[in-house]
């Protein structure tokens, strides 16, 4: 596959791994956070850590949109979905996430009409086919996905569709990164920036990370060689004493993002004063809601939403995992009480979550690929 296979070449990975190893200062430990769950997935799915020296640790950040939705919001959504006059739609990943009374799949088994969609636009099709029902799209995702929801809303208005609304749970990545940077027990050497979010917001929003927090950022693509090269770029910055925002994923990410997409989001949505994140708590200006102008499509106004709040389970240490203080396997309940079938915490609920990725793909003794050149002084 073009633009995919050429970025999965094992020979080039070995060469890049040698360059990375050669940049490691003896005795120093490096910790880089990949912000995006898509990166976490790539890292585990391709076994990328086999190419990294033991002194480089990857910390799996908060960028799994499914994982960060708090249980209370899921309970709210299920409350909506349980109405006789509602068909709820969402992405497949979302449907597995448990609320306090099981997942959407469990609710479906109890008779609730919940449907998986590939694209938000599919919800419009369902709305047209079911004029006597209200179709509520449970919107989740970072800035990558928000434009698709926005375009769908614009389309619904243009068509004059009256029975489509959005239960908006779109979140924004920068406040979450900031919350992590402000956490006192954090120790990171740099960030792999979220590539697909950046296609929309560009690379400028990360400049404060380099400027104010002194951490380099490299916006990274999603193939394993993209990630390896981004780690190399971070190592070069550290070695040269630079601290900047760089764009490894320039084939897809324009430095200024996608202005049409930003405009569509701005037209239909606005920032919430605060939003609760699973594992991270309340974060200011970290999520979006439907703008008043589009009130007729705001499920939170159309229906009575109970506004449930559920505390994160006590046994779960997802907050620490998200901040990189703990590795997934260091959590007390990891792999025993908390598994992908019976997830307790946010990081286990989606295949992109750090704990699920480690459990599904990385639960073994790792044998590093021998690197010839890096071993030499």
């Amino acid at each position, binding site marked *: 596959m073009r633009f995919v296979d050429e970025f999965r070449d094992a020979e080039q990975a070995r060469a890049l791994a040698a360059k990375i190893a050669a940049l490691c200062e003896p005795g120093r430990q490096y910790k880089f956070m990949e912000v995006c769950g898509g990166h976490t997935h790539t890292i585990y799915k391709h076994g990328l850590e086999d190419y990294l020296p033991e002194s480089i640790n990857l910390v799996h950040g908060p960028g799994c949109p499914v994982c960060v939705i708090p249980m209370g919001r899921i309970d709210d959504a299920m409350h909506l979905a349980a109405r006789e006059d509602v068909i709820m739609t969402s992405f497949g990943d979302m449907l597995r996430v448990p609320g306090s009374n099981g997942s959407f799949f469990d609710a479906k088994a109890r008779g609730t009409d919940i449907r998986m969609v590939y694209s938000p636009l599919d919800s419009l099709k369902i709305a047209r086919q079911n004029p006597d029902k209200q179709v509520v799209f449970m919107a989740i995702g970072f800035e990558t996905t928000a434009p698709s929801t926005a375009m769908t809303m614009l389309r619904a208005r243009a068509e004059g569709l009256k029975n489509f609304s959005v239960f908006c749970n779109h979140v924004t990545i920068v406040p979450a990164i900031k919350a992590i940077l402000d956490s006192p027990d954090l120790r990171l050497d740099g960030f792999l920036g979220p590539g697909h979010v950046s296609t929309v917001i560009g690379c400028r929003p990360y400049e404060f990370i380099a400027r104010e927090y002194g951490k380099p950022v490299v916006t990274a693509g999603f193939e394993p060689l993209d990630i390896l090269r981004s780690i190399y770029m971070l190592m070069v910055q550290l070695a040269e004493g630079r601290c900047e925002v760089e764009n*490894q994923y320039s084939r897809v990410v324009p430095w200024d993002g996608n202005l049409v997409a930003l405009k569509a989001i701005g037209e239909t949505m606005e920032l919430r004063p605060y939003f609760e994140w699973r594992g991270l708590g309340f974060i200011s200006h970290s999520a979006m809601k439907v703008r008043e102008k589009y009130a007729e499509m705001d499920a939170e106004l159309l229906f009575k939403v109970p506004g449930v709040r559920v505390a994160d389970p006590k046994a779960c240490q997802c907050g620490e995992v998200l901040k990189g203080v703990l590795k997934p396997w260091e959590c007390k309940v990891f792999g025993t009480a908390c598994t992908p079938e019976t997830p307790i915490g946010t990081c286990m609920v989606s295949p992109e979550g750090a704990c699920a990725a480690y459990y599904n793909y990385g639960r073994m003794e790792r044998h590093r690929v021998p690197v010839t050149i890096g071993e030499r002084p």
Partner: protein
Amino acid sequence: MCLGIPGEVIEIRADQPDLAKVDVSGVKRLINIGLLSDDPPQPGEWVLIHVGFALSRIDEAEAAAAMEFLEGIGQAYEDEIAALKESMID
């Protein structure tokens, strides 16, 4: 979730210019290209697809530059391994 897949635009729908047919490794689907309305992609160009929308255009020149870098270090690595082997023979 943040899945973005490269696909080649093969046809723009004449009746609905915000829709394009893309080809992903032999599989075809209509996607919405409204997010690229500033400079709509043409058949033969590649886009990144996310939940049924083209999110970004794939820049061939940038991709080629990235490949060149990777191939370059691959070659340097091969050369160095060869040199290392040679020096061990001595």
